């Protein structure tokens, strides 16, 4: 075990840090949360800068235009960009971290040549059409139907949680091509060009009042069979391959922000005259300790990925512990905030709004990307070998 960075890793860090220092002054101001055109411009603009400097697709293989960085270098990249307050991946998320990696492993050479460069260069924004109103935790129950008509699929159905749908160019879409087999077996993975006729996108407001997601309605949308990635009815496996691309770095930026939020809360308590309250100290001290421990776990997961290529269920362990921590941090914060907790905006000269929004974020974290209940099942079944859920036989 060694937590020190190698010389090569340190060199990578220094180069990146210098580059960030040199270019960040040129990055424009971040647009407001609801100005989607401007946000696309901002996010893809940053992606173009990364591309030109050789940092685009940091974890992608070199042969597909990525940097081929190790998981540790990816960690360093995320640390440094966070520390420098560089833009986030934003709406390049699906392309860079989900659809792109899937294409790298599963797509045909033609498909790769056609689609990968656009993602890396920031030309194309992707969205994800996986979840449906009736298929959330049970994703394989999806019903969005695709019927083959010559060299096209005709797709009708509804998708939900489709972030950035209204500004995206492509969508990684899961459709049902066979309803007569076990549910995992009849799914197909398609590339949907978002300018296809028959797509209706409706904004979906979240509990903060923001429009972060969308619902996507498909009405006889025609998708060329050439846009299929993998075989017909083999889409579940194709969709799951992305998991093998996850190298334990999924929550790094988020964790670093939470560490900041925790320090902020201590400062806040101090300014309120509550830092002498030993209960508040222990609560915050303990959360700070757990964040350090989760940071260590992150490094263990990354080291495992470096050695084996996979994180395995360690990602669920992280997610479960981190989510629980966010809930507790949010609750400590709201109790300290007292009446200021009634506002998502700052009250007075302290950044109280961050803590209220942080509390809401915690509520989402235990649901999004696999609910707490799903994570516990994964840990119990995959890591501890406990029996699976029994099949449901009515009452």
């Amino acid at each position: 075990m060694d937590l020190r960075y190698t010389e090569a890793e340190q060199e990578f860090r220094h180069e990146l840090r210098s580059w960030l220092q040199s270019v960040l002054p040129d990055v424009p101001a971040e647009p407001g949360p609801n100005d989607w055109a401007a946000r696309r411009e901002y996010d893809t603009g940053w992606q173009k800068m990364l591309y030109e400097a050789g940092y685009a697709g940091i974890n992608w293989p070199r042969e597909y235009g990525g940097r081929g960085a190790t998981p540790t270098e990816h960690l360093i990249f995320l640390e440094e960009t966070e520390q420098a307050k560089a833009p986030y991946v934003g709406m390049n998320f699906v392309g860079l971290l989900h659809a792109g990696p899937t294409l790298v492993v599963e797509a045909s050479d033609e498909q790769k040549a056609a689609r990968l460069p656009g993602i890396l260069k920031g030309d194309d924004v992707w969205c994800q059409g996986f979840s449906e109103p009736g298929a959330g935790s049970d994703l394989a129950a999806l019903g969005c139907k695709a019927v083959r008509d010559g060299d096209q699929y005709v797709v009708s159905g509804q998708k939900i949680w489709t972030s950035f749908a209204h500004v995206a160019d492509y969508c990684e879409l899961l459709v049902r091509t066979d309803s007569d087999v076990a549910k995992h077996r009849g799914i197909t993975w398609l590339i949907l060009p978002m300018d296809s006729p028959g797509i209706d996108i409706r904004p979906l407001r979240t509990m903060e009042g923001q429009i972060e997601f969308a619902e996507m309605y498909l009405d006889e949308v025609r998708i060329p069979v050439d846009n299929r990635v993998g075989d017909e009815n083999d889409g579940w496996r194709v969709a799951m391959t992305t998991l093998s691309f996850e190298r334990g770095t999924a929550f790094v930026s988020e964790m670093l922000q939470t560490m900041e939020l925790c320090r902020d809360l201590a400062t806040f308590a101090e300014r309120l005259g509550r830092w002498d309250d030993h209960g508040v100290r222990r609560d915050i001290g303990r959360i700070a300790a757990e964040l350090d421990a989760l940071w260590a776990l992150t490094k263990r997961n990354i080291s495992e990925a470096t050695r084996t290529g996979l994180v395995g269920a360690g990602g669920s362990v992280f997610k479960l512990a981190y989510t629980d921590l966010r809930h507790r941090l949010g609750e400590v914060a709201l109790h300290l905030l007292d009446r200021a907790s009634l506002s998502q905006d700052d009250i007075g000269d302290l950044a109280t709004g961050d803590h209220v929004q942080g509390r809401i974020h915690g509520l989402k974290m235990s649901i999004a990307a696999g609910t707490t209940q799903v994570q516990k099942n994964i840990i119990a079944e995959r890591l501890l070998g406990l029996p699976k859920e029994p099949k449901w036989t009515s009452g």
Partner: protein
Amino acid sequence: MDFWLSDDERDLQEGIRSFVEGRFPLEEIAEREETEAVIDLDRWREIAEMGVFSLRVDGFDNRSAVVAFEELGRGLVPGPIVATHLTAGLIDGASEGSAVVTLLETDATATVLDHAGQATDVLRFVEGGAERLDPGSLSLAAIDRPLDTLTPVWRVDGDVESGTEIAGDADAMRLAGTLLTAAQLVGVAAGAVELATAYAKEREQFGRPIGAFQAVKHLLAEMYTKTDVARSAVYAAACALDGAADDDVDRAVSVAKLMAGEAALFGGKTGIQVHGGMGFTWEVHAQRFWKRAVSLDATFGTVDHHSMRMAEMIDVRSGA
């Protein structure tokens, strides 16, 4: 001893419940979030006509009042109902629903006033009494994004000048206000359980209603349990305030507020969790219960505040 709803209390409960369900459907309440005025003043007068504001002035006891306020909480009826009720007979129009009276509280962080935009009067507790302020006399800064859109808030800047003294026993008002807010919180907790339970029975995943999964069942059982324990505390505090119990009134009221705040906060967040992804959408009401729980928990003292008060009331025996 008969610590069970009397027939009259049961009738009142049912009356308020059907009034709330009939006149304040959640869909309609949610629509008002998009407007400047979350309080529909016609409906506000209907609340007055139901006798809610004047309930205790009209001779009903605190036990009746908690039963009624629980139902108002359960239906997420918006507006400063407690403060208006407290000042019935003391501030013009409060009984009749022509006044909207809101409560001004200051804590270590700031002074955050809810419903200032529609308030006609402001109630404030001061050392040894209570006073009425004119909303116009306050330096108000609107907050764009309240946590609970149905509880719009304003920041109060600068010093607040003295208002007009309000007759009546300020301590008793404060206790009643704390108790009735606790009753609302129990209602919020109960509403959250009902909504989540209904969803768990209907929503299917993996070929079964999610309520058939033990993890979901157990979350709902915990919500229900906390709600029922808190309800017991609220009813007991009402008895104490009415002299229908031997318990210490201050203590009973702190217990009620603390337990109710905890039940509503837990129920609110857990209700969201049970709803899964839908739970954090705007259109689903689950989040509204949590937001209301946070707002009411920070009114008349948070869970933490009352935990400290409870500790102060423990008879720490001098070392023998």
